[in-house]
């Protein structure tokens, strides 16, 4: 918003709980918190000039994504026909640094309060002929007071803004935690493929960071996650390799059924079955890089209220299996910025519900289906029950063979 031409005269305050993060060049080791940035999100970042900084720091584009089942041979491969990048794996710190640089460029319009925390919000009364200020009052921990026409809550899935605004949140804690780590591969490779395998305990994913390193995101039960963190490095690496390579969850029945279906497809659609590539094997893990965090799903019943808007994880929280969490947030930002910019050019009051509701409708329509689908996939792949495995095996194989469906995904 600071870079938007219609916001030239406006004042924006950003309350950031963490410290300022800016890097001129990245340290040698990779951070274990990474995100998969979609091309759409990259466009948003480049529209405010941040993508150039990301590129000059470091990122890894990937061209292909292979997703397969632990219980069968079924597999689906995503790649763009024109060999364009499907997405980019970027460390979160890199994105933060790029954004910090761009915030500095509009420091006359955007004031960032680092290490600040809001302790109290005072909402405007709905009555229209009241004598108190109709704006939102924010009191900070250090005693400073701010007042604003529009408060945007981007404070994560435990959003205080959302709670204080009394917006109900539908949430569900998965019995899973995600284990993240930075891994070093056994041998250098092009490493432009993202790998994900659905184990009965949860999906394990390998996201490329460079020709020799990848980032691990392994969603599994809380107990297993703690075990993984506690074990020594060699055992940890062994667990990862066996998770990707072992076939112990296969049953003859499923294998045969799967093979039959596959030959049926190749009769109907010869190009419908792709070649299965083998994921790289892991040699070692970065010593300090193992960490875990709990997973859940959440969706706010409302994204907006008079003078309040929620974006990102404050509005919706999703399982990492689709790698879409941050991209949904970027989508929210692009949409809200678009509506606010148009409202500013019309001279409207920025906190007015009229355009905020347009943002809410547009994003809820987009987000709800993706969140529901991700949740459904997570549940579908959490089981070893034969009928469900068969269903999803055939489903996956069929989807792999049908270009229109794949493109939609």
């Amino acid at each position, binding site marked *: 918003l600071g870079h938007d*031409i*219609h*916001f*030239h*005269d*406006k004042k924006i305050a950003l309350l950031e709980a963490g410290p300022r993060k800016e890097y001129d060049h990245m340290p040698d080791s990779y951070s274990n918190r990474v995100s998969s940035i979609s091309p759409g999100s990259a466009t948003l970042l480049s529209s405010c000039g941040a993508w150039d900084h990301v590129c000059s720091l470091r990122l890894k584009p990937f061209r292909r994504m292979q997703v397969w089942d632990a219980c069968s041979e079924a597999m689906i491969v995503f790649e763009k026909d024109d060999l364009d990048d499907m997405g980019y794996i970027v460390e979160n710190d890199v994105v933060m640094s790029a954004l910090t640089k761009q915030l500095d460029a509009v420091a006359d319009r955007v004031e960032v309060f680092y290490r600040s925390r809001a302790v109290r919000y005072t909402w405007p009364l709905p009555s*229209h*002929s009241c*004598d108190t*200020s*109709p*704006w939102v009052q924010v009191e900070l921990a250090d005693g400073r007071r701010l007042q604003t026409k529009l408060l945007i809550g981007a404070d994560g899935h435990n959003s205080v803004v959302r709670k204080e605004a009394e917006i109900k949140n539908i949430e569900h804690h998965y019995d899973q935690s995600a284990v993240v780590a930075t891994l070093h591969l056994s041998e250098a490779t092009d490493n432009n493929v993202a790998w994900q395998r659905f184990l009965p305990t949860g999906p394990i994913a390998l996201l490329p960071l460079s020709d020799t390193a990848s980032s691990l995101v392994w969603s599994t039960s809380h107990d297993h996650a703690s075990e993984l963190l506690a074990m020594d490095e060699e055992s940890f690496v062994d667990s990862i390799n066996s998770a990707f390579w072992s076939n112990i969850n296969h049953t003859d029945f499923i294998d045969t059924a799967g093979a039959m279906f596959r030959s049926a497809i190749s009769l109907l659609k010869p190009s419908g079955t792709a070649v299965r590539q083998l994921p790289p094997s892991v040699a070692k893990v970065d010593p300090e890089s193992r960490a875990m965090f709990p997973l859940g799903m959440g969706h706010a019943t409302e994204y907006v209220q008079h003078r309040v808007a929620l974006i990102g994880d404050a509005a919706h929280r999703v399982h990492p299996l689709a790698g879409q969490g941050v991209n949904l947030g970027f989508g929210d930002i692009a949409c809200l910025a678009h509506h606010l910019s148009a409202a*500013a*050019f*019309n*001279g*409207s*009051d920025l906190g*007015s*519900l*009229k355009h905020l509701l347009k943002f809410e409708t547009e994003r809820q329509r987009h987000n709800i289906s993706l969140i529901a689908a991700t949740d459904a996939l997570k549940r579908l792949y959490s089981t070893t029950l034969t009928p469900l495995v068969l269903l999803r095996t055939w489903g996956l194989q069929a989807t792999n063979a049908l270009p229109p469906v794949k493109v939609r995904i």
Partner: protein
Amino acid sequence: QLSLFRFTLKRPFSTSHSSVDSKEMKKFQLLAHKWWDEEGEYAALHSMNDIRVPFIRDSLLSMSNNYHPGNPLSGIKILDVGCGGGLLSEPLGRLGASVTGIDPVEDNIRTADRHKSFDPVLAKRIQYKCSSLEEIVEESMETFDVIVASEVVEHVADLETFIKCCSQVLKPEGSLFITTINKTQLSYVLGIVVAEKMMGIVPEGTHEWEKFVPPEELERLLESNGFSVRTVKGMLYNPLSGSWGWMESTSLNYALHAVKSGARVRSHATDAPSETDVQQRSATAGTAG
């Protein structure tokens, strides 16, 4: 005797030559506190901002060369006649203009003043005055770049006087923006019967069909008083979505943009230029010879 004289001079405009209709004033007095309820009685006027503000903004931008990002109307002085609670003055102020809003109903001005007082930027850019158009003519000759009279001309008592006053306070080549309702069978059925009596889109009794103004008549009055009409566009309200849009036909609501002619307009517009020309020529002929 002197004191009597002063007393009668105090209220010169309460009699026949006013464009303010006292019956109309009473109607608006009753609803003065409802202006800023975006979903209340004035909801349709709030959503009208979505088309009338861009209309005014874009017409003015296309006529000027300066563009200040974030403040497209900066440096422009606007008079909002019949501003009511300030629904249109505020967005224009936010876009950078210096706005003077006038309305004959005191309660409206009080509501407007209070609402703008919470916004430090608007509080400086907008000034409200409880007054009719005639009352400010003398002190505001050729002061304003733009006059906006939105949903007003269907409430005035004497339209020609109103237009003459507009011309007097407007700078040469200044713009006049009017939105109002056409006088047609359709506007009676939809504008009064449906909008007021049936659906409550407009508070009942707000409008009288007799006072609706057809665009042809408005254009005639404007052209004969020194204005040239640039644009006339039909407007349509969709009650289901609560939003306004443009339409080809002006048989219901319409918006109009006129520009005051550049030459200084005297009361006998047709005579003046040729007379002075002749005088000048004879003067120079005299000195040359």
